[in-house]
């Protein structure tokens, strides 16, 4: 509702008693709307209509493009060699059964087991070694937010006063934990080693490269060790405590390589990128191709996976415990292609969608042929 006086005002503007129909020429002009194309809603426009005729080419095009792409993807994906070893140790027969069992351990000793496996095909080029966990909810909300990015970025104040989000992994023994939070605390700490068994029975350790597995930006920008201590990380981290489940503090993650130690340890960085789904795999090591290019990176033959468990202090089991929540631990060896790792889904999806489009195109062609003429006829029955 408008105020009465408001109306009266408006009245004055529009209506002159006694002179109806003879508003001055100036008044007429000002009220006449501008005749622009926009105001008259007559802007030039492209007016496409989705008809069977117009979408037909698009459907055939999609079909013709998608099917080859799909086939290409599928073939590429199939050419990728992948080998998976489950070393959870659920079965009695499994070599890692013992280590996964609960019994008292001498805390100083460690448990290790050897899992033999055979590769039937040679793995060419770089081979990527992953560890896979299942039923491990890295994407649980409480878990995802339990970290302090500024602490990991080397912020001094956050180092000594980490975010509240890290609770209950924020302090231990009245010292701040570095790196704090549930994610860092549960860092995957099984040590995996790979040995090639030469047909003559000798065992060669395969060189596993532990750098270059994290995002470049993560390693160089997002994660940083706190400054100070003249490069001696033990001094920098002296007022902090190690995460409760860790055996060694953060500055001893890779004592041999200062560029892979502390917060910029790539195993830590990889682990800190929380997985999207409860079953996930993370890059562990890279086996680089031989320099000579003559022999494959991993020739076919027998291999041994040597797993060394570190003991988590709060836990009674010696290994990285997954059995409590029916988890599985795997090691995956894989080559990659231009489209990444083994991924049959994308290829199949492309082929399916391409065929469906092609089929729809045929159906539409039929419909267009049969009904199109009828519709485009000018006479419209109504």
């Amino acid at each position, binding site marked *: 509702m408008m105020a009465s006086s408001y109306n009266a005002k408006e009245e004055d503007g529009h209506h002159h008693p006694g002179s109806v129909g003879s508003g001055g020429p100036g008044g*007429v002009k000002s009220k006449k709307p501008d005749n622009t194309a926009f105001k008259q*809603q007559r802007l030039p426009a492209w007016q496409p209509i989705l008809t069977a005729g117009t979408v037909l080419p698009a459907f055939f095009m999609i079909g013709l493009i998608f099917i080859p792409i799909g086939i290409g993807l599928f073939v590429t994906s199939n050419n990728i060699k992948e080998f998976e070893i489950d070393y959870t140790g659920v079965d009695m027969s499994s070599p890692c059964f013992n280590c996964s069992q609960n019994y008292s351990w001498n805390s100083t000793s460690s448990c290790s087991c050897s899992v033999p496996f055979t590769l039937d095909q040679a793995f060419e080029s770089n081979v990527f070694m992953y560890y896979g966990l299942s039923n491990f909810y890295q994407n649980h909300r409480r878990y995802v937010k339990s970290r*302090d990015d500024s602490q990991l970025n080397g912020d001094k104040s956050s180092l000594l006063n980490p975010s509240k989000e890290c609770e209950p992994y924020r302090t231990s023994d009245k010292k701040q934990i570095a790196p704090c939070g549930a994610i860092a605390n549960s860092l995957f700490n099984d040590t995996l080693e790979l040995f090639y068994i030469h047909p003559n029975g000798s065992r060669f350790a395969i060189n596993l490269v532990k750098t*270059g597995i994290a995002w470049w930006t993560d390693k160089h920008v997002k994660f940083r060790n706190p400054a100070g201590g003249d490069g001696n990380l033990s001094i920098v981290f002296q007022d902090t405590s190690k995460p409760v489940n860790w055996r060694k503090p953060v500055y001893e993650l890779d004592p041999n390589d200062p560029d892979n130690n502390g917060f910029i340890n790539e195993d830590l960085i990889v682990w800190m990128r929380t997985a999207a789904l409860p079953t996930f795999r993370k890059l562990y090591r890279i086996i680089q191709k031989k320099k000579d290019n003559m022999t494959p990176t991993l020739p076919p033959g027998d291999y041994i996976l040597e797993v060394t468990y570190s003991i988590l202090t709060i836990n009674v089991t010696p290994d990285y415990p997954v059995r409590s929540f029916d988890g599985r631990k795997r090691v995956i060896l894989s080559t990659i292609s231009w489209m990444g790792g083994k991924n049959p889904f994308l290829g199949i999806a492309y082929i399916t969608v391409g065929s469906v489009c092609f089929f729809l195109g045929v159906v539409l062609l039929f419909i267009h042929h049969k009904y199109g003429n009828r519709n485009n006829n000018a006479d419209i029955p109504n």
Partner: protein
Amino acid sequence: MALCTGEESWVDSRTVYIGHKEPPPGTEAYIPQRFPDNRVVSSKLIIDTPTSPMTSGLPLFFVITVTAIKQGYEDWIRHKADNAVNQCPVHIIQHGKVVRKQSRKLRVGDVVQVKENEVFPCDLILLSTSKEDGTCFVTTASLDGESSHKTYYAVQDTKAFSTAEEVDTLHATIECEQPQPDLYKFVGRINIYLDRDEPIARPLGSENLLLRGATLKNTEYIHAVAIYTGMETKMALNYQSKSQKRSAVEKSMNAYLIVYLCILISKALINTVLKYVWQADANRDEPWYNQKTEIERQRHVIIRAFTDFLAFMVLFNYIIPVSMYVTVEMQKFLGSYFILWDDDMFDEEIGERPLVNTSDLNEELGQVEYVFTDKTGTLTENNMELRECCVNGHVYVPDAICNGQVLPGAAGMDMIDSSPGVEGKEREELFFRALCLCHTVQVKEEETVDSIKRGIHQGKSTSFYISSSPDEDSHMEILNREDEMERFELLEVLNFDSVRRRMSVVVRSSSGEFFLFCKGADSSIFPRVVSGKVEQVRARVEHNAVEGLRTLCVAYKKLSQEEYEEMCHLLNSAKLALQDRDKKLAEAYDVIEKDFILLGATAVEDRLQDKAADTIESLHKAGIKVWVLTGDKMETAAATCYASKLFHRNTQILELTTKRTEEQSLHDVLFDLSRTVLRQQGSMTRDTFSGLSGDFQDYGLIIDGATLSAVLKPTQEGSSSGGNYKEIFLEICRNCSAVLCCRMAPLQKAQIVKMIKASKEHPITLAIGDGANDVSMILEAHVGIGIMGKEGRQAARNSDYAITKFKHLKKMLLVHGHYYYIRISELVQYFFYKNVCFIFPQFLYQFFCGFSQQPLYDTAYLTLYNISFTSLPILLYSLMEQHINMDILKRDPSLYRDIAKNSLLTWPTFIYWTFLGVFDAVVFFFGAFFLFDNTTFTSNGQLMATNTQMMFGNWTFGTLVFTVLVFTVTLKLALDTHYWTWINHFVIWGSLLFYVIFSLLWGGIIWPFLNYQRMYYVFMQMLSSGPAWLSIILLVIVSLLPDVVKKVLCRALWPTTTEKIQNADKLYKGHLSEFTPLSSLHAPPLRKHDRPGNDSQIHTHRRSESSPTKKLMCTYWGGKPDYCTFSSFLRLGDNPRFSGAAFAYGAPGPETSV
């Protein structure tokens, strides 16, 4: 003493002490009353927030801010306007002096002095004026739009108190009814205490009441006493009654919202329950790697469950499209400018463009099923031209009548009958005298205003006529006399009202004879006539009425002295009555106005408006039922209806009139008609019921006011059969393509609208009218349209939209309404769709993250999705979309049927959109899921400089889903857009580009103010991965595929009319609108409907051709140096404005107050 009798029922009256002086002690024991001060409060400070309470963060804040700004702005404007009124100075008489006061401090009982051209600050009783006779002139243009000057009278006994000092000595009290909104009704009494104790009681009527908002004219100053102030003034009471209208789209929007609210709650509930089922295992609830804090553990399980539920609600709340309300508001507000800007609807003549008083109902214009139109001034021009007069059975056409005399030398062709004899001559004289005297027209000159008593006035060429009725103006030019001066003394005026449909004057001629002249509608004159050539006149009147002319009968009677005195006594006693004055007056009039001698009749033509017939025909083709509601008589109205093609020649007319109900009982007539109609309905198939097919007999119904009130009357108890007259009547109406309601009182117009509104289909109604008598129906109908016409602006002001001509209704409904509806329905559906797409993946994600309320998307994406990534394309779409060319819409009204009954917002379409949203969401989520699950979804690093292989985490997963989402949702809109201007291109591609740029930026920097850096380089890493690109393309195409296939198949197999036209238009490459006759697109049977219409078209042409000659005539008369002004008459027809408004407000008169 009348005082005592009414004592008890006077609770509803007020006593006003003039000048705040107590009456002499012992006269009456009045109850002191408190009256409010004169402050007007129309601003309100309540912010009405949009519905959803469960919204968090910026979107809600944004919505509230925008709404608050809009409301606050409007409130500020109102407040400013209020302030301006409240502050403006008024002059009050205090202790014999004139004192300036602020308007808001004015109190009831204050004596106010108002000068010329000032606006009355409150409702006042006129005490005295600067003129001796105690009259003043007032224009109520801002109240009811009537620009004419009306005369108001001071109380006879106080008119001598003309100076401030004198007024101060006045000692009187006023008793009057409590405030009521009826502008034209007022009953009160003033008790004047002169020297003695015994007060003199005088009646007060609306002629004494000066209304707030009216302006004093041609009077130097007046003194008046305030009786209603502030929000109690009649004007304030009138404006309060306007209620908020809601459109059908808004209603379905709210219904959808409730559905989505239920979905939201059930989603949250399901997830909460599942969470606790899943968590039953302690190792899942709290695995070793993810311990809870002590505080969390101690929390009671119910509290935990409740907070979980709330957390889920917050997570999913985006499914409620809060921003939709803002977008809808903006769309309506901005969209309404297209009506304002429309060149076609600009009226060159008046220099006016359409008015949009509310933008809330834009889309309702596309949903109209019933149009209720006024006749005079709406369908017709309300530009009266005298066509002929019939005096004593002889017919004269205007050429033969000059200056009030029949020119004896006029050619025979002008004189339809042979020249009248001597007796005829006498009658002629009387006839024109009656027309001259029986009127309310006043002659206005530069300075002097003369009342008509003087009879003849020396006019200059500058003088013009001021009349409260435009009918009267039209006769001024014709009814001039140049010869002798005759002097008549005006004794009494029996004012016009719409119940009696006549008015009378009593005059004394110079020779001392008393005459009573009466003019009025034929139906109210003929029964009261005792002699005269009734038959001939009646035949002529009926003939004229059939031609569509407005007729008026004139009669007179001679009064003897005794009769006159008796009459005066009767009138005075009626006028003095405080209770039931109107009723008593009506009775008195009834006694006085009888035994007439018929003089003759006049016929005035009111031409049809330009393209009115074409408009009505278009509306019919658009499936809109047009009802004409008029106060005019049946024959005239029916003729107009034929001329305007409302009825065709082959329309079978069903009459439901008093004439028929006199012969049969109403019951029988109703059942007869319904049988006729239903028989037809039974024999036809569903398809032909569209009303367009040729073999379908269409019906037109004519009903008059009296019969209608009988039909609508609540039935007497006991009679079982009469219970559903209303239902039968509605059934008949439903089957008639056109209905004409004549002899309607304004309130009945509103009643009809209300009845149709309440009928079981709940159709959308539109009322269009130009006069104050249409205001009630304009307010009642879903959409009210006012015509800025001759009868003032009250209709325009109370309407939702105002246009200048009836023909503009066509473009308003068929083009603008259609577009608005298409646009807003897509807007609403799209908003729900895009939010389902947005939130459903998040819901699915809960199943894979342990029901932990982990959001799938980053906070920035959650917040900005509705605000910036997807908001502008749909807003632009909803402003620009034109699925069909404007010209085609105009040429082919049947397209309007395609969107009738809210067809784009039905439940099936809503469910389709929702399922489409769910499907798309499933595609997004599981597409990404299968890419991430069980595979190494990686970038191979070759795109990056370093030769690394990277793993993607949960944020990359969310970003992938979100990217597909934004692209799909935007491209879906692009597929729906039929009208791509550069703006659409700019906004659609621009917002996609904006998304990409924003994401690059958002992930490109370590933002120092954020305590998490989870999005750092996520988007770039994703884009550097080949499979991500491939999957984005794949998922977008898969999501869009079903909708495209559905659209194409529907178009090919079951096309709607709209789609056929689009196809045809495409075929002719857009030239359809210009070159192809659209009739070729239609079935031929329509053609034969055109024929009667063509005839009347020719008819109209012929008439309009004759108009220039008439104009010439007028100038000829105007050029006369010394012409005498007489006045005119004609207050009948269908614009009884005074009584009209009385009915419109329908407020209880004093007789109902106890």
